[in-house]
């Protein structure tokens, strides 16, 4: 039966070529399109995670919803001791964040001001590598302020300038100090660069009375895939007033946005599949109806309906396989190539900076699992497309079909 199918494919060239080309196009397009879509989503997430957000963060409950000094973590060391016992955690750091008004001699701006641990932060976030001018913080850098370039621009300040800070300390008392601008950074995320400034915790804790307190503890894990298991372990060890959240919760908005984007992507691409499905079906149907007599003869001389189905299945299966076997490596190569050498659209990040896009690059995602399910869909559609022709041909009586003109 398999040989016969092969011969039919070679014999009915028009149908074979059309099916091959369409299957090839759809498989290739599917792989590349999904790879591009997933790739840009992954890179957005990765960039966002890299900048400042941790893969797991520990909060006092309600800090994220209500916030304020009542919802600070008050015994950081106790939690840190627990974290030391959990495997899979790379590093962690406790940050103390507050909002205040920063003013230079001419301008002022509201900003996030965070006390961070200068030695731990470089392995947790992009802060240190994002350095543009001056230097990053150190444990002894005192009142040195490390601020985003766009914030500095707003303040019309330059390195070495004094920046005044007005805010509320962790006990709700008034806090004010003079900082010195020691370094500026650019992460690429506009909203972050325009409204964040950092200062060494040792110094900031004195000002804010925030020793052993934290807004949250930021955790980096060895392998991002383990994040859920590690999170469960952490949750088991901390008390009920504290919650441990993974990036999936922390960046819910972004994750949701990507899901919406994916939905639209799939809806769009599904049009192609519907059309291509129909065309492959039509060509299969035309092919079968031009072979009614042949199938009739086969039935007469003793081929069962099942055998006819098998024959048609083999035909579409072989055609699909050939097309997919050509398309998959090409698609995979394109995906792989662009995952290593992302497409660059100059000015894209500038244009979409309000939307959190921080890079001009569109990297593709190269994921064998994704490619596998993409081609499975193409296979499935092709095989579905032959069902109607199968039913059609088997609806004939053998004698009728054998004498069909």
């Amino acid at each position, binding site marked *: 039966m398999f040989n*016969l199918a092969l*011969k*039919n494919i*070679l*014999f009915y060239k028009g149908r074979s070529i059309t099916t091959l080309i369409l299957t090839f196009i759809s498989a290739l397009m599917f792989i590349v399109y999904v790879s591009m879509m997933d790739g840009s989503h992954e890179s957005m997430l990765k960039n966002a995670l890299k900048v400042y957000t941790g893969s797991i963060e520990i909060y006092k409950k309600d800090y994220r919803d209500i916030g304020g000094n009542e919802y600070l973590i008050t015994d950081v060391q106790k939690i840190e001791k627990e974290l030391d016992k959990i495997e899979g955690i790379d590093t962690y750091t406790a940050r103390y964040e507050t909002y205040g008004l920063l003013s230079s001699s001419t301008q002022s701006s509201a900003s996030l001001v965070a006390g961070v641990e200068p030695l731990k932060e470089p392995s947790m976030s992009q802060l240190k590598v994002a350095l543009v001018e001056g230097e990053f913080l150190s444990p002894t850098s005192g009142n040195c302020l490390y601020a985003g370039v766009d914030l500095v621009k707003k303040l019309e300040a330059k390195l070495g300038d004094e920046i005044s800070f007005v805010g509320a300390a962790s006990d709700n008392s008034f806090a004010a100090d003079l900082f010195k601008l020691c370094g500026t950074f650019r992460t690429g995320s506009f909203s972050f660069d325009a409204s964040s400034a950092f200062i060494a915790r040792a110094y900031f804790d004195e000002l804010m009375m925030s020793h052993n307190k934290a807004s949250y503890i930021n955790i980096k894990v060895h392998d991002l895939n383990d994040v859920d298991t590690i999170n469960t372990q952490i949750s088991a060890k901390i008390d009920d007033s504290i919650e441990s959240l993974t990036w999936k919760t922390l960046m819910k908005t972004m994750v949701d946005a990507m899901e919406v984007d994916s939905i639209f992507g799939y809806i769009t691409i599904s049009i192609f599949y519907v059309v291509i499905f129909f065309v492959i079906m039509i060509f299969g149907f035309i092919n079968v109806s031009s072979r009614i*007599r*042949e199938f*009739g*003869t*086969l*039935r*007469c*001389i*003793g*081929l*069962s*309906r099942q*055998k006819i189905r098998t024959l048609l299945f083999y035909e579409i299966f072989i055609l699909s396989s050939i097309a997919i076997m050509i398309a998959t490596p090409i698609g995979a190569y394109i995906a792989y190539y662009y995952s290593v050498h992302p497409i660059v659209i100059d000015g894209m990040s500038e244009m979409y900076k309000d939307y959190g896009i921080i890079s001009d690059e569109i990297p593709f995602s190269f994921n064998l699992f994704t490619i596998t399910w993409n081609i499975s869909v193409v296979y499935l559609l092709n095989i579905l497309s032959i069902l109607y022709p199968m039913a059609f041909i088997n609806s004939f*009586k*053998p*004698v009728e079909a*054998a*004498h069909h003109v």
Partner: protein
Amino acid sequence: MIKIQNVNKYFYKGESREVHALRDINLEIKKGEFSLFNGPSGCGKTTLLNAIGALDSVDSGEIYLGETEITGLNEDARTSLRLNEMGFVFQAYNLVPVLNVEENIGFIMKLRGFSDSEIKARVQEVASFLEIDTKLKSLPNTLSGGQQQRVAVARAVAAKPKIILADEPTANLDSKNSLKLMDMMRSLNEKEDISIVFASHDELVIDNVRRVIKLKDGALVED
């Protein structure tokens, strides 16, 4: 070998255009017979042939092939009966266009699971008998009508069926080719001891068979 008892068949049953295609046919065809259903168009000869060939059902009566009642079988059983016990030759040759002559002849044997060496030997034997052994690698559409029909006969014969049913095999052939075909089928009938039943109104066929069964308006009129 074939026993037909009180067979009736209608087309468009229950409609105003109802046709009584077969009327109370009673008939026996013995092993090794070389016979013909003859009659004008629409007399029911093809219908009868199809009924014997388990291609078509009947409305009443029974047809036996040996001990098996064909008329009582389901579709699967009939398919396997056709495959294992019968051979068919059609007016329009109906070869598989994508297979070459050798593969066409060996096709049924292959379906029945003969080994490749068995098939090869048998195809060679049948083909040389039917004088198409020089064309074994050709595709059907490169052959003349006479050659194609001989390939069809070869295909029917190759798997040694109990009976071959040939519906107007000569209708598309000129008289020279028709005669040659009839000669060859007759020799096959004798040599291989296979019953062959024709349905035809070709004079040339009538002259060459041993038994002529005449039908008119679905009824047996002469044997």
